């Protein structure tokens, strides 16, 4: 069974490389660049893993995360949060809002792909 990954990220070149890598790893990938349409897209296309950038045009990643975790339909979707800030405060907020994994940019491709695989497999204990 093919597993789906939704990338919510506004930088098209990052989306392109992640899409390439995840597709090569066997995932079906969709992407959206705007925070406002993320929730609509989720309703129509529920992924096995959501990659969510923290800073997005429209609704930011933290607000999307808060909304998803307060909605029973999305409360258990595994979420990998990406941020360009390595600040501990952002990490703490993301984890307290219910992100399963948190990675800072610039990331290593292999780490992101492995994290997505682990999230899709429910193997989340060792994730950063």
């Amino acid at each position: 069974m093919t597993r789906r990954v939704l990338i919510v990220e506004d930088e098209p070149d990052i989306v392109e490389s992640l899409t390439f890598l995840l597709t090569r790893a066997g995932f079906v990938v969709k992407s959206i660049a705007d925070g406002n349409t993320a929730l609509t897209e989720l309703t129509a296309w529920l992924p096995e893993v959501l990659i969510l950038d923290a800073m997005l045009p429209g609704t930011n990643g933290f607000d999307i995360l808060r909304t998803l975790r307060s909605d029973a339909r999305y409360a258990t979707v595994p979420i990998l949060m990406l941020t360009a800030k390595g600040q501990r405060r952002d990490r703490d907020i993301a984890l307290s809002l219910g992100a399963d994994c948190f990675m800072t940019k610039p990331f290593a491709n292999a780490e992101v792909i492995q994290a997505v695989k682990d999230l899709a497999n429910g193997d989340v204990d060792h994730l950063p």
Partner: protein
Amino acid sequence: MSSRSVIGLKIRETRRAQGIRQNDLAGRVGISPSYLNLIERNKRAIGGALLAAIGRELSLSIDSLDGTTERRLRDQLLTLAEDETVGSQDLRSGDIDSFIARHPAWARALARIYGALAAAQAEIEALSDRLTHDPVLAEAMHTMLTEITALRSTAEILSDPAEILPQQRRRFERIVDEQSSRLARTATSLAAHFDRISENRRPRTAIEEAENHLSGSDRTGATETAAQRLLTDLGEGRDLEAALFAALKRPPHLPVEWGRSKRISSLSLAYVIQSEVPEIERALEHCPAPALPFATDLLSRRIADAICMPAETLLHLGSRLSWDLDAMVRAADGDGPLVFRRIAELYQAGAPRAGLISVDASGATLHRGGALDLLPRSRQLDCPVWPLHRARSGAVMRAKVVLPGGDGRQVAARAHPDGMKVDMLVFAADAGFASEKKTPLAVGPGCRICTHSECASRREPSIIDT
């Protein structure tokens, strides 16, 4: 303890330090020794004409005698004692007044150090605040990290031996090309932003304000004019040392081991301080109040230097010796500090364009002068690569350096004979003071925040991961 007791103690300590007997001082100011004894033991109040007379005899200002200086110092030390990070209960309960009266130099030094600490803390807070809240910086950093992420991720894909379709490969190569161009533009605009911050930076300390105030060309002209007039007053053709000695109402004590140039330097300064110098007053007209004492001292020193070595003497010497600094110092009776100061002072009058930095034995910057725009932006030269941290007395150390940011400079450093201070002249990159064959030294902002990972002089790891 009241200001009266501070005055009594201060008179006694100063009198003793100057080797003046109680009887002699009492006689000079027209009171009985027993009355002076009562004043010094804080049994009698003192003020007005008598206080002024004692101040004159002991070369102390009314401010320092009537306790104004001590009260200010006392407030600073009380703040230090109550400071959570450096103070303690022992300090709070100690006798600060007695400490100030008995060890005024130490008390002032302590207050200065505490002032510097407070200024440094304020700057760190301001910088932290800027990094956290400066919207331009935050935006630029976010953009850069995003661009670096795209670049890194794409470069990893391209370097992966796994097969990529030609069409995909071309797309990723285009991304690398575009993202690296974007990154270069973002980095350039970020550097420009830092430059603007630096240019808008106001002086942080009173000494820095004083140095900035005195850096204009009209100040240099006033210095030379004042020195020329004072020299004329001393009498043409007379031996300078003898003339200065004769002109001084109260010549300073000159240790026997001092050479002639050091004696003349000390006498010249005393002569400037004693003289009416309207140029000083005019030059300091718009000087900020906190910087006034420093600016007065700096200007007096400059005029004294101009008496010791008039502009035409320095320029003639430089021209004759092709600005060979070692030869010039020898020709100036070994007075390297004077030669260095005069070159920096006279860069607008024909000397090579140079800035001057003087540091003490601990490496702390004491003074910056001359062409300030040639000097590094940071006042403290924390990087151990700077030649002035290795300079010896007796020879001028020359080097080419590359400043953080990439600008080049040539420098010439020389330690004072006692090794307690070092002067460094900083010239433009093409000034011809250092051998073209020498490899430039890469100086950084200090090991903690320096990215020169291979530096052989590194003293501690950098907090910046390179």
